[in-house]
């Protein structure tokens, strides 16, 4: 995350430079896609959300205030848009929540990734607030302070949500593991 470089590219974008826009998209599409994927639990939804995020970013690029970090702004839009998608999905398909637990992803094709799939499943069981903090910390690699900037909540709240979310996920994985031992194949 290069603040000065980003600021220069954003200025070039404001002047209509498409190469600068391309560089910013190239730099941030992967982290935005990954954050959206871990929040939404679905590749197609994450791809759609990523596109919407960048359309919004460049639609409002003239309003962007360079006093703030560009990546924080992009992540804030990404998180809000992911949560909007979840709300929209819940509105359209009220039963979608129950589908969150048996998460299906490309990882499942490999035994080595079965654990990763279970972790994603536990992530999907968290509330939106908790899941967002876990994703920003462990997927996006943001610090407490950066998460606080992105979500616009105090650092204390970030810590409290993160610690609680980890506890809940641990419990969920523990239950999952016990169920596997009890009823699943060896």
């Amino acid at each position, binding site marked *: 995350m290069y603040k000065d470089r980003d600021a220069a590219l954003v200025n070039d974008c404001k002047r209509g430079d498409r190469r600068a826009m391309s560089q910013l998209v190239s730099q941030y599409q992967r982290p935005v896609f*990954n954050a959206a994927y*871990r929040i939404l639990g679905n590749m197609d939804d994450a791809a759609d959300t990523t596109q919407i995020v960048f*359309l919004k970013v460049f639609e409002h690029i003239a309003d962007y205030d360079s006093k703030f970090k560009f990546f924080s702004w992009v992540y804030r839009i990404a998180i809000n848009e992911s949560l909007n998608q979840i709300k929209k999905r819940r509105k359209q398909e009220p039963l979608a929540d129950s589908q969150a637990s048996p998460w299906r992803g490309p990882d499942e094709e490999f035994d080595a990734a079965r654990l990763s799939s279970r972790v994603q499943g536990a992530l999907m069981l968290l509330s939106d607030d908790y899941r967002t903090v876990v994703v920003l*910390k462990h997927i996006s690699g943001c610090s407490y302070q950066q998460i606080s900037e992105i979500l616009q909540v105090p650092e204390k709240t970030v*810590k409290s949500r993160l610690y609680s979310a980890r506890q809940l996920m641990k419990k969920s994985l523990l239950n999952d593991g016990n169920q596997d031992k009890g009823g699943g194949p060896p």
Partner: protein
Amino acid sequence: MSEHKHIDQHAEDLLNGGVDGVLSVAEQDELNSLLAGSAQLRDLNEELKTFTGLLDGLQEVEPPPYLQESIERQIRLPVHRNQHEEKQGFFGTWLPAHWLRTGFALAAGAVLTVSIYEMGSGPMTAEDASNLVGTVIKSQAAEQGELLDSIHIFTNTLTGRVELRKKDDLFTLDVQLNSDGPTQVVVNFAGRGLEFESITRTQDQKDIVSIVDGSVNVASSGEKHYTLNLRRTTNSEGREIAPLELEFFANNALVHEAKLSVSQ
């Protein structure tokens, strides 16, 4: 991972801070001393490390290969105009800008009217014809209004978005599409207490607009931005309106279907 007896909040904060590597030297010393004195805390610390390791170890997923190109294709940046381009030409100096705009708008309106007149020989019912209230450019107020819903279309042959806005009893569909081939959008508003009001901004003679059996059908190609206006009929006031159904065709194939919620 096992269950543990209650650990006090301060110790838990230190454990989490330690795992995240954010403790000060004094806090780290305090944690070390707590760990030295409690087997339960040591177990919990190991569990937390293992668990956060799992989270940190979640593999990054590759975005679809088309994603970057698709995003870039849809982004419109501000057009940078140099001093030479900003010079007004003869007509620009002579006529105020809004006169020119009005002229273009009237020309576009005439084209649309002709298109709809030609389409009139098709399967239009009397009721449909009565819904053709206005086809000429409407005021810019139609572009404002409360955002009710929006959709984005990302397919190999067609990309774009549609926003549904409401102002008083006017519902506005702001449509932006981009396609290499012919496209067609069908908006079904039958039985919803709405009537077709107008369409704006299509200025291409090849665009065809038709209103058949309670649906608006717009055929175009290339990059398009237009606005469809539907007005609530007086006898439907206070009634719940079912979502509008939209179908998108590209190269004569249905590529996307969507619903736009009329109530927030």
